[in-house]
């Protein structure tokens, strides 16, 4: 799992069956200092997140397990809000 900041929302009405009701959001992965790490990607959000939130997400096949229907072609899912994260004694902010 990784830390990320939600940066945007994606609208797609024509989706593969099983993920129709699941929101899609752009996320920017973050490093241990809270700075941008790598390219942005799109993840399913199952916890009601929105732009600006600090979140953690899971990637790979496990991401589908976070969705209401688990046999779906999903490779990234936001699975939690982060209220506070500390690395090397310093607080990470989004």
């Amino acid at each position, binding site marked *: 799992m990784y830390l990320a900041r939600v*940066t*945007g*929302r*994606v*609208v*797609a*009405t*024509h*989706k*593969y069956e099983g*993920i129709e009701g699941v929101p*899609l959001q*752009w996320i920017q992965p973050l490093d241990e200092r809270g700075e941008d790490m790598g*390219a*942005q*990607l*799109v*993840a399913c959000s199952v916890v009601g997140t929105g*732009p600006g939130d600090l979140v953690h997400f899971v990637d*790979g*096949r496990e*991401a*589908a397990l976070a969705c209401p229907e688990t*046999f*779906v*072609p*999903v*490779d*990234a899912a936001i699975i939690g809000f982060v209220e506070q994260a500390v690395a090397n004694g310093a607080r990470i902010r989004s």
Partner: protein
Amino acid sequence: MLIGKVVGSVVATRKDEKIEGRKLLVVQVHNQRNEPQEQYVVAVDAVQAGAGDMVLFATGSSARQTELTEGRPVDAVIMAVVDSWDLGGANVYEKWTR
């Protein structure tokens, strides 16, 4: 998942029998600002996407989690057609105005 634009299709008469009948599309990756990247993927189409469509695709073993691709040698699948997206509250892409 990543977003990309369908820029072509692949015709392959001789291929593994497990992927016969699967529609293969060439997708050029776009970033969050809708800038095309020098990154292309061949993906199985699971949502009847067409040329010029902006699509979402999943990669890796997740790509096998559709009825079309289960148990087959596939590592990228198009699983949604994108209508629009915004970034920081500003609209970046809108399908119906292009």
